[in-house]
């Protein structure tokens, strides 16, 4: 269906080759995963497939790519929309019209589809992607998962044979992600569409995948069946890491595989004994006190009567659906959002009343779009600005940055950094003040396993007996690795609050893979299991 023959891509003015002599074949009707480190070229590979690269971006291209028999060098992407369709990383930015129904017909109108066929297809797509209740909704009012489904529907109405998706679940909560992926899998099975998906969160997609394209750092690309690729790939989801660590010969691709293969091991495992930290924490002072917080947007209540106390030494993860009020809660506690009733005290001070240096030396906040905090023209300038903004000795921030991420050229423009590199830069700037409370909103969007590992160790090292970390995240594996306590929000209310191990293992949506494999024992991560084995 998609054939690459000796494809080489070079961008002008750049030394390195993006792809060299790439040849592979994707058969019809498969669910294909493109994986690789951040910045390895996954998005570029997807855009090569439908011709956006190099037609839209420029670049020097040699070789041939054919999709369903059409040479992409001879056809513009707009002429191939009924063959190959792409949904970008942030679908909301790509919406052209303003209501769901209009968005679905936009492509068909330019294709010249007959009006009665259009009406039929719109109804079909509304049913297939469960969008019927949303048909008259404004696109700006959709949640992340809904927007993603609308974006998929809006290209599917053009009846493409191949669907490309760039990180479709990176902004979604575990349940919405599951829904989107299940829908995609249904397209492959029921309609015979070839789906190619680039994704970092392997644990979410692996169960659906027929074939893997592995874009490695050294510009070489491996294509193969999942169990071949995952035999020795550097990137691997937790179940495969666990299975490898236990020197299991088979490669488990689903939780069910892993449960079967490791059932003997699971029963031989000693029950977990976690250090009871609650007593220790009872004595530590409360750092953040929220009482009866209520936030309203017009007539909609975003947060209802939230009370929450966070003590020093804690790493608290806030979880919940898209739109449950996580970001509202975080922005309220860092003092950049007004609220109606209730009080928030950080180290006995109201963050809303603080400004400038006083605010940022009390709370450090990394927003969802971390790059918002960056405005300089180079990394070096950014680091120097941070020193002067924060009134710290010059060189402090760059030292911190070098610890977080060594070897970055300081003349690079911040926007040319990869997502993970930019996050490290922002983290260094925020941490330069040593704020007692560090707040992170969705820090793992677009991060690969390596970058996540660096983030985990960076966050762990900042937590001392005088500070605490609060993060909102959809990434259950990260939360399992990092958090000591989990707070679950639903519809603006706290519905669960407790030690990470209890909360994460009690609901299937939030359970990390290791917990699912070794249930009912409350293991959360591979490292935990291995550490316990070592002690024996």
């Amino acid at each position, binding site marked *: 269906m998609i054939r690459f023959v000796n494809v080489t891509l070079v961008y002008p003015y750049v030394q390195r080759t993006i792809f060299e002599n790439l040849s592979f074949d994707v058969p019809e009707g498969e669910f294909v995963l493109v994986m690789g480190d951040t910045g390895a070229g996954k998005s570029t590979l997807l855009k090569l497939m439908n011709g956006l690269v190099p037609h*839209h971006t420029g670049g020097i291209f040699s070789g041939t790519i054919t999709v369903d028999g059409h040479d992409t060098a001879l056809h513009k992407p707009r002429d191939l929309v009924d063959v190959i369709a792409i949904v970008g990383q942030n679908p909301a*930015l790509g*919406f*052209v019209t303003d209501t769901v129904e209009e968005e679905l017909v936009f492509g068909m109108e*330019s*294709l*010249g589809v007959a009006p009665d066929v259009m009406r039929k297809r719109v109804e079909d797509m509304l049913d297939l992607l469960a969008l019927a209740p949303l048909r008259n909704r404004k696109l700006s009012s959709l949640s992340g998962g809904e927007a993603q489904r609308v974006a998929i529907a809006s290209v599917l109405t053009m009846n493409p044979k191949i669907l490309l998706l760039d990180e479709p679940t990176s902004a979604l909560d575990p349940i919405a992600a599951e829904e989107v992926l299940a829908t995609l899998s249904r397209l492959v099975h029921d309609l015979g569409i070839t789906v190619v998906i680039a994704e970092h969160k392997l644990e979410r997609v692996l169960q659906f995948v027929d074939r893997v394209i592995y874009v490695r750092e050294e510009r070489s690309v491996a294509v193969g069946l999942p169990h071949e690729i995952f035999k020795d790939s550097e990137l691997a989801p937790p179940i495969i890491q666990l299975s490898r660590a236990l020197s299991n010969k088979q490669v488990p691709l689903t939780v069910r595989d892993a449960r079967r293969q490791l059932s003997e091991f699971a029963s031989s495992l000693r029950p977990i004994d976690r250090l009871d930290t609650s007593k220790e924490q009872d004595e530590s002072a409360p750092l953040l006190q929220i009482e009866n917080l209520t936030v309203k947007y017009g007539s909609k209540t975003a947060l209802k009567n939230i009370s929450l106390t966070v003590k020093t030494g804690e790493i608290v993860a806030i979880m919940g659906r898209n739109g449950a009020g996580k970001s509202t809660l975080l922005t309220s506690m860092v003092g950049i959002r007004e609220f109606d009733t209730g009080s928030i005290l950080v180290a006995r001070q109201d963050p809303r009343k603080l*400004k400038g240096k006083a605010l940022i030396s009390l709370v450090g906040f990394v927003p969802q779009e971390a790059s918002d*905090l960056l405005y300089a023209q180079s990394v070096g300038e950014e680091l120097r600005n941070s020193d002067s903004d924060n009134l710290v000795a010059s060189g402090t921030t760059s030292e911190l940055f070098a610890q977080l991420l060594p070897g970055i050229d300081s003349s690079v423009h911040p926007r040319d950094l990869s997502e993970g590199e930019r996050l490290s830069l922002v983290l260094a700037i925020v941490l330069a003040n040593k704020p007692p409370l560090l707040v992170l909103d969705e820090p793992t969007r677009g991060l690969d396993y390596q970058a996540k590992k660096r983030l985990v160790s960076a966050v762990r090292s900042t937590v001392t007996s005088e500070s605490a970390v609060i993060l909102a995240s959809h990434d259950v594996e990260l939360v399992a690795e990092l958090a000591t306590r989990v707070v679950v929000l639903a519809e603006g209310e706290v519905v669960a609050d407790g030690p990470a191990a209890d909360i994460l293992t009690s609901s299937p949506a939030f359970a990390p893979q290791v917990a699912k494999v070794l249930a009912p024992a409350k293991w959360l991560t591979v490292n935990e299991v291995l550490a316990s084995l070592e002690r024996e």
Partner: protein
Amino acid sequence: MTDVKTLHPLAWWGWGICLAIASSRAQGVGALGLIIIAASTVAFSRKSNDPWSAALVIGIKISLVALTLRMFIAILFGVPGQGKVLFTIPRVRLPEWMAGILLGGDVTLERIRFVFTESLTIFALIIAIAAASSLANPKQTLRTLPGILHEAGVALIIATTLIPHFAMSVRRIRQARTLRGDQQRFGFKKTLVPLFEESLEHALVLAESMEARGYGRNPSRKVSSAPAVMLLLGLVALLFALLQLVIGASFQLPLLASALLVVSGLIIGNKQNLRTRYRPIPWRRNETFVMISSIVLIVISGFTTNSMVALALLVLTLTPLLVTSREVNPS
């Protein structure tokens, strides 16, 4: 959506343009006042809460400012003339180089009345157009355009969404400034540079998405550029002919010829264009009724005002009220 009784967007525009023509023909302050009141009544009672409805209030504000300014200038700058002197403003001596301009002097009733009628005409023109633009949904108006103009229209609509996007980005960037401990409210480098960078990035994403959704594609392979050339030439010629009219030259023939060129360009272009339309907006009897009454309005507006003419003007301007109902916003 469909049970909401409003008019076809082109019917609203037709009504507005007819009102504008009628008010330029109308005789006297009374007729103009009636048109203004009736048009605002229709617009206020039928407008929705959508953003474009703000056009009405903006239009009224602009025309009020224009009216006041015009009257003020008319009183302040004396023009020597005959008539009943209302009051006299002491004349100010102006320096030599401003000879010919008179500041102050006698203010006559005739002059005030003339200027007031003139400004009221402009007032009515602005209100008529503002009423139409606050009543017709711009997106739906775009959908009624001939297919050949559709792409330019999409680009225009996207351009209009830029301002709200900017406002949102600026708010986010400001928050980010606070989070970096910056207390300065506005800085060129710290606000505008990130704003432009972000807008450029978004524009690229949108362009990519539109390209990948078939924007700019023509399903028929044999497309000649002749209709587009005809359209452009026609528009340029039309503009030229209109300018000639403004400076007073009689240029009826070129005007007609260029209009013909534009229309035929549209027709030929549309035949080539195979773009289809999802659920086109219907043109019903209601729309035809409003259009006919608006044309009658133009005819009647030329008569000297008496009570019968005034009544007819009022009723004809208000006809859209008979065939529409208040729009209920599905939210």
